[in-house]
């Protein structure tokens, strides 16, 4: 297996940071977040699942799409795309799987989303395998695993004295050119262990979460379970904003500068959430999803019925962030178990 030490890794990352936007897990006031770093000294190498996903670096919370400027009668239009290469170091396998889910819509549907595609193309994903599953984690029920290299360019796994390095793609191999690697005796650490061999948050293996096929969801649209789970929903946006696959956005033009003879306008897009009260309101003021249960139901139907039907993959990777961050304990695993039970799965 290919092997490198932490010191070598740090030297390589310091070098990368000079020519790339380097994003890595960092301690931000006690919160573990993927954030830009200037050097390896800021990077956490031993960390749990970061509290927000990596989607911010592909579908930024706020992104300027274009700038227009009118001077007298002349209008100029400028497309805005960052030109630096980006490296996402320490991305967890579930977040990488989340990107594959987003690809199904943003890249594989015509026309592709040029902004998303641009970020995807400029980014190399260097993953760090999770040593265990944490509270809320259920990736093994959603087709992933704590050490799943599938959606990454490189996967590192902590081993005695350093890291085992798995090169997954050519893009990954190219990025690794500056990293000192040695060949070591022995096999790379096992991949995709069966779920039962992973420790859950309280020791034992996490209970598998059933996934009901999309066609069976249709029959449950009017089921009482949505009222039951949705009643306590606060209609905030935490679950959608921490989610690696929720991808709704809103677009607006904002005036940046106005003075005689000059108007400058920016078109931005920013995250939006189907759980929020006015998300579905339409021209004329009608809101077809006026209540919390209806909105919450949509979030789950999107993930397990509409998205797989329309674009292929499930809209959930089992990262568990929505579970641990919901202030009123709306638990996607509980919902999935209820759906399975109600549909006789």
């Amino acid at each position, binding site marked *: 297996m290919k092997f490198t030490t932490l010191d070598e890794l740090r030297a390589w990352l310091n070098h990368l940071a000079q020519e790339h936007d380097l994003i890595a897990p960092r301690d931000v006031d006690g*919160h573990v977040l993927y954030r830009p770093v200037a050097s390896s000294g800021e990077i956490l190498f031993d960390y749990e699942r970061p509290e*927000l996903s990596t989607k911010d670096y592909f579908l930024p*919370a706020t992104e300027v799409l274009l700038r227009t400027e009118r001077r007298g009668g002349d209008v100029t239009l400028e497309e805005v795309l960052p030109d630096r290469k980006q490296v996402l170091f320490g991305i967890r396998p579930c977040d990488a799987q989340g990107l594959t889910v987003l690809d199904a819509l943003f890249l594989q549907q015509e026309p592709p989303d040029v902004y998303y595609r641009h970020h995807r193309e400029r980014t190399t994903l260097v993953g760090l395998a999770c040593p265990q599953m944490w509270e809320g984690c259920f990736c093994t029920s959603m087709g992933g695993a704590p050490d799943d290299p599938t959606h990454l360019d490189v996967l590192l796994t902590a081993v005695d004295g350093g890291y085992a390095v798995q090169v997954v793609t050519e893009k990954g191999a190219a990025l690794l050119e500056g990293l000192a690697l040695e060949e070591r005796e022995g096999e790379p650490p096992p991949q995709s262990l069966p779920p039962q061999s992973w420790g859950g948050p309280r020791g034992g293996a996490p209970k598998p979460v059933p996934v009901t096929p999309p066609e069976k969801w249709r029959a449950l649209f009017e089921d009482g379970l949505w009222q039951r789970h949705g*009643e306590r929903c606060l209609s*905030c946006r935490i679950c959608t904003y921490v989610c690696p696959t929720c991808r709704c956005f809103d677009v607006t033009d904002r005036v940046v500068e106005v003075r005689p003879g000059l108007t400058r306008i920016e078109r*931005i897009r920013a995250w939006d959430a189907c759980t929020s009260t*006015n998300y579905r309101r339409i021209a004329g003021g009608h809101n077809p999803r006026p209540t919390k249960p209806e909105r919450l139901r949509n979030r789950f139907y999107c993930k397990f019925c509409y998205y797989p039907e329309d674009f292929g993959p499930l809209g959930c990777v089992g990262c568990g962030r929505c579970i641990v961050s919901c*202030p*009123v304990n709306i638990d996607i*695993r509980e919902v999935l178990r209820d759906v399975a039970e109600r549909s006789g799965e």
Partner: protein
Amino acid sequence: MSTSEEITREIRAQARELLESGQVSCIIGYEVGSRGRARPAFVHDADDVERLIWGPDCVHNLTVYLHDFKKPRKRGEEPPHVAVVVKPCDSRAINVLLAEQQIERERVFIIGVACEGVQGRGDPSRSPNLAARCIRCGDRVPVVYDVLLGEPPEVPPAEDDYADLARIGEMPPAERLAFWLHQFDRCIRCYACRQVCPGCYCTTCMFERDDGLWVDIGIEVPQKYMFHLGRALHLAGRCAECNECERVCPMGLPLSLLNRRLAREVETLFGYRAGREVALSPLLFELGEEGSPI
């Protein structure tokens, strides 16, 4: 039998009576959640009252859900009668909502619980691991209730000296601004603070207008700064200090520092703390000389 078990039993009995008699159509209380901790529960059927519990992890302020019961279920019907379980801090929000004519007293049955404080964020095995708001809270009994469950504990009432505000109060303005900008930078504009707040019930929040009159949809520091300061100002004299905004914030913003700064201001100026007593109208609506708290 522990206090929690006894109160749990009493809540269930009360809930059964209210539902069976048809006095209310729903009990808003607590149940055990999927992660073994208490969560809000809505019991519509007397056969379901066994779900209800009481314990030190009943942290949520359930009065926010009263807004969901303001409108009739069907056109032409009356709005439903509901019962809600409240702690002293939660009950203050009821007084605020009554003063603002958001709820009708006769449609809400208030199950008050004598309170020793609820759990904080820290290690639950640490005892006592009280929430910060409970450490400075002197109220053992809700300010308004229809029935009181539990014995008011013999705890010396805490004196709220706003000690939590000292550190930030001592900062020079530039440092204080830097502190807040640093905090707001973490905010993800998820609006959980607003959604969990009983006092934030505008149909259209001014920070979420379609025309972006005050802030646009961007999730950037200027919009977040505007939102948090604006929300704090809109809650001045209205915030019941349940501190739910700070509890639910996924990014750990110290929002109590904003809300309590204004609570202190209002108390200093008007000798008034929102929700502590029944008010005929909200403090800042009092414009006349007579009856004005000023």
